[in-house]
């Protein structure tokens, strides 16, 4: 590689260079520690009881891990219900967003029609509109449809508000798809539906996975719509459910820690296995804006 050769010509043998390099590394590690520190502390105190949390040094290992904190909050509160609600709302909204987004991106990038750039512009500009500027009309609209305190309102809102970023990530991939395949398919008399569902969609599985995981993260973490549109405990998702649940446990830190760990665990596990897609999706969804 050119870079390796370039560095071989100027080996950093001087001490100043090495120290400089070391300083940079330490800086990177300090930033990493700052980013991880609160989370490690959370993991630790989720496995302790109050006495251990308040009397031992904050970062002492939970030598006698209190797994009971986890079973307690899972069984006593409605965390399992919130968890289930979060899962199905996240999955439903993500599936619809990626499907509708793929349809639009296909129509914009692979078909010629008047107004396609206008439609694309509408989707892109929507990204800049603050949620709070739509919240009151959304509330009264859902209210008039009888969708307040109904999870359908969440699914609809999630699909609409995540559509721009989804299309943005999909666009780059669709523009890069070779046209030969579809030209051949069209010559063979393949219908548009068949072309999209049987040929194009299977070719885009990697970007579908990327947009899917990004959507899942955003939907899983969503707070303001749930907080505004859902009243009854029965339909709450983890974010608002955890928020209310913790209110009852203000003094039991171990229980609070365990609740928070349960709520972030699916994201951490997804990150462990899919970090490349997540990083790629977040980078793709922002730079081109």
């Amino acid at each position: 590689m050119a870079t390796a050769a370039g560095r071989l010509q100027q080996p950093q043998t001087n001490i100043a260079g090495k120290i400089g390099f070391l300083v940079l590394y330490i800086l990177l590690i300090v930033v990493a520690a700052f980013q991880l520190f609160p989370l490690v502390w959370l993991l630790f105190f989720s496995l302790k009881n109050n006495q251990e949390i308040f009397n031992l040094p904050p970062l002492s290992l939970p030598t006698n891990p209190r797994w009971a904190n986890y079973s307690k909050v899972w069984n006593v509160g409605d965390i399992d219900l919130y968890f289930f609600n979060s899962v199905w709302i996240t999955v439903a909204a993500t599936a619809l967003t990626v499907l509708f987004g793929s349809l639009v991106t296909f129509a914009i990038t692979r078909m010629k029609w008047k107004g396609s750039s206008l439609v694309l512009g509408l989707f892109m500009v929507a990204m800049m509109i603050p949620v709070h500027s739509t919240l009151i009309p959304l509330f009264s609209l859902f209210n008039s449809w009888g969708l307040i305190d109904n999870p359908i309102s969440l699914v609809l809102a999630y699909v609409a508000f995540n559509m721009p970023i989804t299309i943005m990530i999909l666009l780059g991939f669709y523009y890069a798809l070779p046209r030969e395949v579809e030209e051949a398919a069209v010559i063979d008399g393949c219908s548009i539906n068949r072309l999209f569902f049987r040929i194009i969609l299977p070719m885009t599985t990697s970007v579908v996975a990327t947009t899917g995981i990004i959507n899942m993260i955003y939907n899983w973490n969503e707070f303001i719509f749930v907080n505004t549109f859902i009243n009854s405990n029965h339909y709450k998702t983890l974010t608002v459910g955890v928020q209310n649940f913790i209110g009852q446990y203000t003094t039991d830190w171990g229980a609070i820690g365990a609740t928070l760990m349960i709520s972030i665990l699916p994201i951490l596990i997804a990150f462990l296995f899919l970090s490349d897609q997540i990083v790629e999706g977040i980078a793709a969804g922002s730079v081109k804006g």
Partner: protein
Amino acid sequence: MSNKKMIALYILPALALIMGLVYIPIFFTGYYGLTQWNGIGDPKFLGMANYAELVGDRMFWSSAWHSFLLALFSGLSLILYLAVAMILASHIKGANMFRKIYLIPMLLSSVAIAQLWLKVYHPTNGILNSLLVSLGVDLPPAWLADPSIVLYALFVPIIWQYAGFYILIYYAGLKNIPTSIEEAAKIDGANSWQIALRIKLPLVGEVVKVTIVLAVVGSLKYFDLIYIMTDGGPNGASEVMASYMYHTAFRTYDFGYGSAIGFFLLVISLVATWIIRKATASEEKIQYS
């Protein structure tokens, strides 16, 4: 391929959602802002009365000032992120792992982050004050209860949450610069500082502009952690525009005045975007691909 019905069918689901749930609501926000309305019955038309009230509302201007301060600090912190990204992009081993670690807080829900940082800032048992006491500080501050520091205490987790996002974007931008440019500069005798400031910085200029817009506009409409951690308190000391709008609309049920604030939020976001774009517009775009 120009089957009009098929195209309509492909774009309609997503377009209907975004028109119905994003664009049409902003017009209603604009209209409701001209009315007196408590959410029940018909809005009563007032004209500009809500906006006249807004101009003289000290609470609103104090929340706008807080939002502006957040935008300022978020904007300034970009310098640090760019520096970290430059270090990461300079052939550092483990750069990929570092940028992933930095990103983790951004993937977690606002509720989890807010609850965790409430514990970090806990006056007696929080990790911050535990550390300060062990370092010999007698009376560490009550971070979130002190009106003079609460706002800045809240900025820390907000910046903590998004640091990895901006570092990731900068890193991706820097990695897009062909290594041949750096090699050529090295051969011409440029040192690392010159390469970073004179060559790399101008080449990621477009990315920097995008991030300034994201950071400033994102700050102006920021809501989540502030609403969950302090609810704008104590006594309005950490109120921002979005939380003030939310309180007005969904706590005092003044939908008319809340809509006026929501509409102002939209206008100021668009104006800020326009100003930043204008201020950072360059005569010529650098092409290097």
